[in-house]
């Protein structure tokens, strides 16, 4: 309301606005903004010999970030996250398409079956994979039993194992937005495309993909970014051979006790996130489809 505000309007708007939005604002301020600013500040701090944080300015942490061993891990992280994302699209898209366009009455059930695994803790499920793939795991027992291989294969602690776990963790984040996007697709558009002489592949490229690209983009963001930080997957399945940025950060806070260095490493993740989100927005992505 530009111009003059009457007493009545003040009474009716300011108090309810404060009561409703106040708690959220305080929460965001103290539990989101302040901690992140604090991390940024800490990334410029030093530690003393007892690993306590000393608040004096240094850029040393950032200098450490460019050491060759770290750069190798960044590259490895980006590679694993990238492969994970690509696999999620390649598996998730056709899968989402089939369940979203099925005419069967079991559609609801098919959808629920994607969500149900999530009610079992993700750590345990990843551990389930380790049990399954381990040298005395079921898969190796089966392979040996069928005489496909004389000795149990060494399946764990490889990049591929970590990717398998990551895809496993994140594929629902790809499937669910795609399912929503594909389900919204108007069938008559596909019929119109066919009617105008397009073969199924043409229809896919000309109509279906462009109309569901929003779902693909948001799915990619929801997979790629958190993937960089999921340290426990590479811990359990990669066994230290497939470290990601997340593992580096975790170590600084949990064992190496160099919090400022961990903070600096986190800043990298924040920057990567910001860049990807900016690209996503440039591509016309809707922030709201990231949330739900």
């Amino acid at each position, binding site marked *: 309301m530009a111009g003059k505000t009457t007493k009545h309007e003040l009474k009716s*708007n300011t108090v*309810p*606005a404060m*009561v*409703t*939005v106040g*708690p*959220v604002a305080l*929460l965001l301020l103290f*539990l*989101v903004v302040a*901690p*992140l600013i*604090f*991390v940024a500040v*800490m990334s410029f701090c030093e530690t003393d010999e007892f690993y306590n944080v000393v608040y004096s300015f240094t850029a040393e942490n950032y200098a450490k970030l460019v050491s060759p061993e770290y750069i190798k891990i960044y590259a490895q992280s980006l590679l694993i996250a990238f492969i994970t994302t690509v696999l999620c699209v390649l*598996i998730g898209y*056709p*899968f989402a398409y*089939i369940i979203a366009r099925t005419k069967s009455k079991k559609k609801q059930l*098919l959808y*629920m*079956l*994607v969500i*149900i*695994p*999530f*009610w*079992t*803790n*993700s*750590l*345990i*499920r990843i*551990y*389930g*994979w380790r*049990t*399954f793939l*381990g040298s*005395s795991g079921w898969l190796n027992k089966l392979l040996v039993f069928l005489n496909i291989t004389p000795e149990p294969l060494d399946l764990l602690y490889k990049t591929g194992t970590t990717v398998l776990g990551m895809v496993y963790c994140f*594929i629902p984040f790809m499937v669910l937005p795609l399912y929503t996007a594909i389900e919204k697709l108007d069938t008559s558009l596909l019929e119109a495309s066919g009617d105008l002489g397009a073969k199924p592949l043409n229809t896919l490229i000309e109509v279906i993909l462009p109309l569901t690209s929003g779902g693909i983009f948001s799915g990619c963001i929801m997979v790629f*970014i*958190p993937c*960089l*930080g*999921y*340290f426990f997957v590479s811990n*359990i399945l990669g066994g230290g051979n497939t470290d990601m940025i*997340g593992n580096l*950060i975790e170590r600084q806070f949990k064992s190496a006790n160099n919090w400022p260095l961990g*903070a600096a490493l*986190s800043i990298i*993740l*924040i920057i990567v*996130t910001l860049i990807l*989100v900016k690209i996503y927005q440039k591509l016309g992505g809707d922030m*709201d489809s*990231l949330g*739900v």
Partner: protein
Amino acid sequence: MKKERKEKRNKFISILFCLMVYIYLFLPIFVIVVNSFNATTSKPYLSWKGFTFDWYVKLWDNSALLGSFGNTIIIAVVSTLLSTIIGTLGAVGIYRYKFKGKSVINGLLYIPVVIPEIVIGIALLTIFSNANIPRGMLTLILSHVSFSVPYVIFNVRARLSGYDKSIEEASMDLGANRLVTFFEITLPVLAPGIAGGALLAFTLSIDDVIISYFVNGQTKTYPLKVMESIKSGVSPDVNALSTLVLIATIGLVFITQSGILSGKHKKI
């Protein structure tokens, strides 16, 4: 004829493909369930030593495991309750009122959603340790509320966008004051969005590993207990508990899906 055969073949490929994806999704769960009946008693509990229900009995003696599960439930219930209240109020307020900094709040809400959990985790850890807040139940609940609230807000907001504001005016026009209108009209109409947000908040809280891992102090949640035991091998009683939880949640879903709980408002 040729077309029909082609369609049949396509359908077969689709079903096969979906089946493989579902197998992929459920394989580790199957492993967990089977291992909960494993009679092995020696670490790392990997080789199959025969079928037993023992672990489902022994489970009740493992007070550390049950305690951590209790913690998880307490944290999930409290943080869901708090984030649902804060989020619902916030969503309604942001939707309804004009105020300075509205776009800032809207933008900040996306941070906990897009930033990797580990960053949120260490950021909360540094602020808690610097503010000398002892890490434990309180910090776990605060942290869970902070990452759940945006999800609640997004859910309620989705419901609000299709919301006809004039029904509130109609309510006031018919003699209900603002408070009565909120409880009689606004809340019931937003209920599906609020319930969806609360369910999401609860799920996120129960499953959270990464953020809890940094802010827990000495308090163990169920996922953290699992993480601790992974080094020496997860014992089958953990699998047994997971199996029970899985059965309970699936049962709950079938109850709600079959409309026993939601029958009354089905027609909305």
